[in-house]
């Protein structure tokens, strides 16, 4: 069927007409598409770009390394260690069960742990890494890395974790860190987002908690690109954080270690203070515990053992524990009496071994009595009756006021947790606390550091330091933060008469160096000292206190200690404080036995500034050297300006 030319032309016309109409429609559609492209890609590009970035760009925090803590000589006492761990991601693992079975050839894992882990993996989303093993050794970590091809989805990771290389030595002072809990967050007004990181560690106690803001540092950030499943694909930008500030403590790691070692498992505490600066050189509370256990997450049984231990290892007895200071308190009423003008250096009381007040008989520790006793002898021989009489004469309020002046019954601000105030009782206190009138018997008890009087070892050390210097020494724990030294306070004068202080110092000195001093048999008479202990309290709660200050010019230190069992352990601590650790001989104590009258008096030690007032004690140094530094000549003592041969020791009891 051949088409005619007319038909062909007509067909062409028709097609051209319709084809152009179609083209018009198509052009309109293409124009619409182009317009739409323009409106989306040019006009609204920013809006979509924002959405796109919101999709794929996430900000992640980089936890900062925690600041280091040094002792006064730069020894690291709290550092960071690499924590090796392995995580598993279900999506990549495929069959987590098989992978974990293989992993168990490399690292030990119990059946129950493996089952719990599998359940955990099943619960989490497929792309969330789950920690398979924490705290791996380097060898385990390396073996996982080497076997990575056989362990799909398992990623070895390393992070930083707090570590306390000195173990329990600084557990109470430094405290420890732990994972951030909801409770922690609830206490913080505006929590730093870095706290939300699962592996982040927060200071829980002690210096770690109190200096948290300094130690934490500043978090860095990473901008990462994530895919639609939320997995990180690459890092776009990384801003490193800043490590927390390095904190230098006033503590001396060696001395601290020595003190902790000597106190051992006893329930005891000791504080060594530089009387000049107030620097706390050692603050030992025993028994101690390993703070690293807490960092890692302590196990139930371990925690129970610590909680139920009758020596209360978790308490920091140096500042939290308050105990009757016993005879160590006697300088307080003595100075109160002297300052009041009601007695003077020549006042003597007769001690028949007891005194009777309001029909009640109060005994001296020496039933036989001390005879006529003056201020210096009252300390040397720790005569109780002298203070019974004194207290009746001057009244409790003067004693309490003096106690507070010397640092007992007031809170010393330190970056430590739960610092106790102690009690310097007076009439107002008893009314408020017990709703009772003050009785004269209360004064009598308080005069020898018993009854209501309570002081922490730190307060005893502060008291001793103040007596030794006559200035309002305040304790200091932090020496420098981030290289910036914390200024030593310019301690104001206490306003006590120098003559009166000298009497008190002489009495303390005589305790150890006097012929009849209650500590005259201590193997280490390094200077003036005074000690005391209360009686008749058996058992682990039996308290006893020692305090004292050395009189060495160059090595000022005051020691406060509590708890009797510690008392005999303190001799070496004193020696160490004076002569430097390791110089003092660790010979067997000779003392240890009961002192006269059954008082096991002690040992206190002390240091130097008191000695500065070397006039107080004509006797000295020789013994110091002889005892403490005989074997290893103590350079400090050698230079101390002590007069050799200044006196032979008299009779020793």
């Amino acid at each position, binding site marked *: 069927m051949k088409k005619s030319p007319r038909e062909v032309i007509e067909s062409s016309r028709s097609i051209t007409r319709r084809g152009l109409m179609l*083209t018009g429609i198509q052009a309109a559609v293409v124009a619409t598409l182009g317009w739409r492209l323009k409106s989306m890609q040019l006009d609204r590009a920013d809006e979509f770009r924002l*959405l796109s970035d919101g999709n794929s760009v996430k900000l992640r925090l980089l936890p900062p390394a925690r600041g280091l803590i040094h002792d006064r000589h730069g020894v690291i006492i709290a550092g960071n260690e690499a924590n090796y761990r392995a995580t598993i991601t279900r999506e990549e693992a495929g069959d987590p069960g098989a992978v974990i079975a293989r992993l168990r050839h490399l690292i030990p894992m119990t059946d129950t742990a493996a089952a719990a882990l599998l359940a955990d993996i099943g619960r989490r989303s497929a792309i969330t890494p789950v920690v398979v093993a924490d705290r791996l050794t380097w060898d385990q970590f390396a073996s996982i890395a080497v076997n990575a091809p056989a362990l799909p989805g398992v990623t070895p990771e390393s992070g930083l974790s707090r570590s306390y290389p000195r173990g329990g030595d600084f557990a109470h002072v430094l405290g420890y860190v732990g994972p951030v809990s909801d409770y922690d967050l609830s206490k913080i007004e505006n929590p730093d987002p870095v706290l939300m990181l699962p592996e982040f560690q927060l200071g829980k106690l002690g210096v770690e908690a109190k200096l948290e803001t300094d130690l934490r540092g500043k978090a860095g950030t990473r901008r990462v690109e994530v895919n639609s499943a939320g997995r990180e694909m690459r890092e776009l930008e990384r801003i490193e954080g800043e490590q927390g500030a390095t904190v230098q403590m006033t503590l001396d790691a060696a001395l601290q270690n020595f003190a902790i070692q000597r106190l051992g498992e006893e329930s005891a505490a000791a504080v060594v203070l530089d009387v000049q600066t107030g620097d706390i050189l050692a603050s030992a509370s025993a028994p101690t515990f390993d703070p690293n256990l807490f960092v890692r997450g302590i196990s139930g049984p371990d925690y129970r053992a610590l909680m139920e231990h009758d020596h209360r290892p978790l308490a920091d007895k140096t500042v939290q524990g308050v105990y009757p200071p016993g005879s160590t308190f006697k300088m307080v009423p003595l100075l109160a009496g002297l300052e009041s003008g009601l007695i003077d250096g020549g006042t003597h009381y007769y001690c028949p071994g007891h005194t009777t007040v309001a029909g009640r008989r109060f005994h001296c520790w020496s039933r036989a009595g001390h005879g006529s006793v003056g201020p210096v002898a009252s300390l040397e021989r720790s005569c109780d009756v002298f203070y019974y009489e004194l207290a009746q004469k001057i009244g409790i309020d003067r004693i309490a006021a003096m106690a507070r002046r010397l640092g007992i019954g007031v809170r010393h601000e330190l970056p430590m947790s739960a610092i106790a105030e102690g009690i310097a009782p007076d009439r107002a206190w008893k009314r408020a606390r017990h709703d009772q009138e003050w009785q004269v018997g209360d004064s009598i008890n308080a005069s020898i550091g018993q009854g209501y009087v309570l002081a922490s070892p730190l307060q005893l050390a502060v008291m001793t330091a103040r007596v030794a210097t006559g200035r309002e020494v305040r304790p200091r724990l932090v020496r420098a933060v981030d290289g910036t030294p914390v200024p030593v306070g310019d301690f104001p004068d206490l306003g006590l008469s120098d003559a009166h202080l000298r009497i008190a110092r002489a009495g303390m000195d005589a305790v150890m160096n006097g012929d009849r001093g209650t500590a005259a048999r201590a193997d280490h008479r390094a200077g003036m000292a005074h000690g005391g202990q209360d009686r008749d309290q058996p058992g682990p709660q039996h308290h006893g206190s020692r305090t004292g200050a050395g009189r060495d010019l160059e090595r000022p230190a005051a020691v406060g200690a509590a708890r009797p069992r510690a008392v005999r352990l303190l001799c070496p601590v004193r020696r160490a404080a004076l002569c430097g650790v390791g110089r003092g001989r660790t010979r067997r104590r000779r003392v240890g036995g009961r002192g006269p009258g059954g008082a096991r008096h002690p040992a206190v030690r002390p240091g130097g500034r008191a000695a500065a007032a070397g006039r107080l004690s004509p006797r000295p140094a020789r013994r110091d050297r002889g005892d403490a530094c005989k074997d290893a000549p103590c350079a400090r003592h050698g230079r101390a300006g002590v007069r050799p041969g200044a006196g032979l020791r008299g009779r020793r009891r």
Partner: protein
Amino acid sequence: MSYLDYSSDQTPTGWRKILYLNWPLVFLLASVASAGLLMLYSVSGGRAEVWAEPQLERFVVGMAAMFALAFVPIWFWRSISVVAYVACLALLVMVDVIGHNAMGAQRWLDLGPIKLQPSELTKIALVLLLAAYYDWLDLDRVSRPLWVLIPVVLILTPTALVLVQPDLGTSLMLVAGGGIMMFVAGVSLWYFGAVIAAVGGLVFAVLKSRGTDWQLLHDYQFRRIDTFLDPTTDPLGAGYNITQAQIALGSGGWSGRGFMQGTQSRLNFLPEKHTDFIFTTLAEEFGFVGTISLLGLYTLILAFCLYSALTNRDRFASLLTLGIAATFFLYFAVNMGMVMGLLPVVGVPLPMVSYGGTQLMILLMAFGVVQSAHVNRPR
């Protein structure tokens, strides 16, 4: 016209045919395909072996087929149009019975070494058949009701077979493609007006019936229609894809994020990024410059086809060229409209760019037929 009408002295013969090929069209097609290969390389994250290489192989085979078909005399295509149509119907029936099931729809026929998607083939066969039909039909009978009814049946038969697969997108493409053939052939505009009015009225009635006593559809069907028309009402389900696609498209801006730098595609936010939504990757990585260029390439292809058709005095060849160009147009217009949020999401690939062997090869073969019409046009 029968093959007897073609005189050998009017048409080029042998190797001379190469000179008469529509070379601009060849280059345009190669350009679009290259863009496609580039995007496939990008969305695979630089691993050519995943998508780009297989696609390249098919492109080479498809180009070879295009040249081979270009040398075939035009009368051959008219002669086999009925056979091709019937064969396609048979394949569609086969696919419904024994077809390969993918994504909940039976679209594939597994023929040993190759997997065939008969619905794609059908689009071309339908164009061939309708072109042959209107070439055969007297011009003055084109708009008579009986002669209008016949092509309607010819269109709706394969449409019904595709619809039961189910494949709504291809069904609509068949209807639209067939409709355009009838339009170009000169069927009276009144028919088109009537059909559009009828469909519009029906849709209006259905939507209007919602919530009334005489509601024509179930509630869940209405909800499906809602989601279909406006995916943003279901942001985590059907809407997720289209939202992400629009973000990718819009975030490209003027010049895009750079080759292989598109976060939406590389990080898997984009669905179907190597097939139906590949345009969004192009938009994200090459921005407005890239998208408008691709749109320009497509428009040029249409323009060259139109020019070829209008200058061809052979009615069959003209209709055929316009029909294939219109099919091509429907592909990219629907795909782009879909990813830009102008049209509901129906699974239509971006021609020559999306990954998919059947689609690419069949399009190239169809352009081979267009080339054949161009080469063999009466002079």
